């Protein structure tokens, strides 16, 4: 693999940048793999990368229906944080956040991880108590998180409407300084490049039509362009389409797929150097390096695979942002898009064995999977390599919905949905 560096940039400038190596190959799949990963998004590519790098399994294929990182990886609002309430989830997300911190060096690919901090606003006494509880829980797990009073919030985000005249006046906030944003595409591409360099086959434009199962054990997948491909183990990382694939394997998942949308404004001069989230008025906002305001909010209440969101949700989102930042009232919105998120009843992911032997699922990340990309890939790779779930992944079994060991993160985690 060609190493990227400042010197390399200089060297290639002498030949008019015409001799850069291809970032990854476009191979024809073999007939047999040790591991097939269905879904070439961030999580799937991270899984492939860690399988090859940490666990020495390089006979791996990633099968992607469209193009790499073209689903929710390309559609999210790129927020990375680990301030979740319960031990199980905060440990998993913290594992991920620690990996984010060295990811650009690890991948030799600039993922532009910017630890600009995430602010969760409280507008009611109930909000403030919940946040205090979550901050305390985080600190017990060794995660940096603190409560800010109104004055501190004002100093941090001068343009935030902190007046008493607001409909829902801001009372304070919780703050995680190590949290931030990253460049979503770069994460997928960096992992893809690293995996490819270690021998992983990235098979794009190929849809998995069916899973080949014999005697309760998966032995391969049926694809549209390359016929049957055999595999010892199959990992399914297909987000919104998880239920559809689980159905093919003959079981149900406790997942519902909802449209989640985001929007960006026209680029403006730097005005917001942190991420501001509010559960109560229900919106979140940050500013990208390009200058766009990146805005997101809630899911549509109904099941939808349309990869587009409804207009009432956009309206509510923009109302929330206007409540927080009246200064943005004249900013024009540039683009709006939607993705299909797989939401679980307890708002926590499923990283699990399934009723089918050697078939593993990693799904149900709902509205907040991007932040978990490195950690999710790492624990899933470990599980696929050993056949036993990684200790951080164990609590996220799909069978928790049978035995009642739910991890009830809804709302409590400062998740804006």
């Amino acid at each position: 693999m060609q190493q990227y560096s400042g010197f390399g940039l200089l060297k290639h400038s002498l030949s008019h940048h015409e001799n850069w190596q291809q970032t990854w190959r476009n191979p024809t799949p073999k007939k047999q793999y040790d591991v097939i990963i269905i879904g070439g998004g961030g999580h799937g590519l991270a899984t492939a990368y860690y399988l090859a790098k940490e666990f020495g399994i390089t006979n791996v294929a990633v099968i992607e229906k469209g193009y790499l990182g073209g689903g929710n990886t390309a559609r999210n609002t790129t927020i990375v944080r680990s301030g979740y309430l319960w031990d199980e989830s905060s440990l998993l997300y913290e594992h991920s956040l620690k990996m984010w911190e060295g990811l650009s060096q690890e991948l030799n690919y600039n993922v532009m991880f910017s630890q600009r901090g995430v602010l969760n606003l409280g507008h009611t006494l109930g909000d403030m108590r919940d946040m205090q509880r979550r901050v305390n829980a985080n600190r017990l797990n060794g995660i940096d998180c603190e409560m800010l009073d109104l004055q501190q919030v004002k100093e941090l985000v001068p343009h935030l409407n902190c007046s008493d005249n607001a409909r829902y006046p801001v009372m304070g906030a919780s703050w995680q300084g190590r949290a931030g944003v990253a460049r979503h595409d770069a994460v997928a591409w960096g992992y893809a490049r690293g995996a490819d360099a270690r021998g992983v086959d990235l098979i794009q434009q190929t849809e998995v039509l069916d899973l080949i199962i014999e005697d309760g054990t998966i032995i391969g997948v049926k694809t549209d362009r390359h016929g049957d491909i055999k595999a010892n183990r199959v990992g399914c990382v297909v987000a919104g389409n998880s239920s559809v694939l689980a159905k093919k394997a003959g079981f149900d998942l406790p997942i519902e797929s909802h449209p989640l949308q985001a929007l960006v404004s026209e680029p403006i001069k730097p005005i917001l150097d942190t991420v501001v989230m509010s559960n109560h008025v229900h919106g979140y906002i940050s500013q990208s390096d390009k200058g766009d305001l990146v805005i997101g909010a809630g899911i549509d209440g109904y099941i939808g695979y349309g990869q587009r969101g409804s207009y009432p949700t956009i309206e509510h989102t923009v109302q929330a942002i206007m409540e927080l930042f009246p200064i943005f009232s004249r900013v024009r919105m540039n683009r709006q898009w939607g993705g299909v998120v797989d939401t679980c009843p307890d708002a926590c992911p499923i990283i699990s064995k399934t009723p089918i032997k050697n078939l593993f699922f990693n799904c149900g990340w709902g509205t907040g999977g991007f932040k978990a990309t490195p950690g999710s890939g790492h624990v899933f790779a470990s599980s696929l390599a050993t056949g036993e779930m990684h200790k951080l992944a164990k609590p996220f079994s799909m069978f928790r919905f049978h035995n009642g060991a739910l991890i009830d993160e809804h709302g409590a985690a400062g998740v804006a949905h």
Partner: protein
Amino acid sequence: MFHIYCPHCAEYREEEEFHASGQAHIARPKDPDTCTDKEWGEYLFFRKNPRGLHRELWIHTAGCRKFFNIVRNTQTYEVKDVYKVGQKSSCDPVPNLKQPVGAVL
């Protein structure tokens, strides 16, 4: 934005007036005390999540506040049928679904 016909108001109204309450026709186990954990868990949490036609329970929250059922395509968002609770759907069984919605109907 799509329009939904409320069978109680007998009018098309905007989607915003309604609230989706999830899958329709979920039968509560006849004898919960004898349910296994698996059966009870599936009743509580496991839902059909089809890409295609889906039977759903909706409520006209900003209107008559009554519940009713719809058959909707989750890919195109086209509403195929609307019927009151207790009535029979005119598209029955749901076409294009591998398995019929079955016993719980």
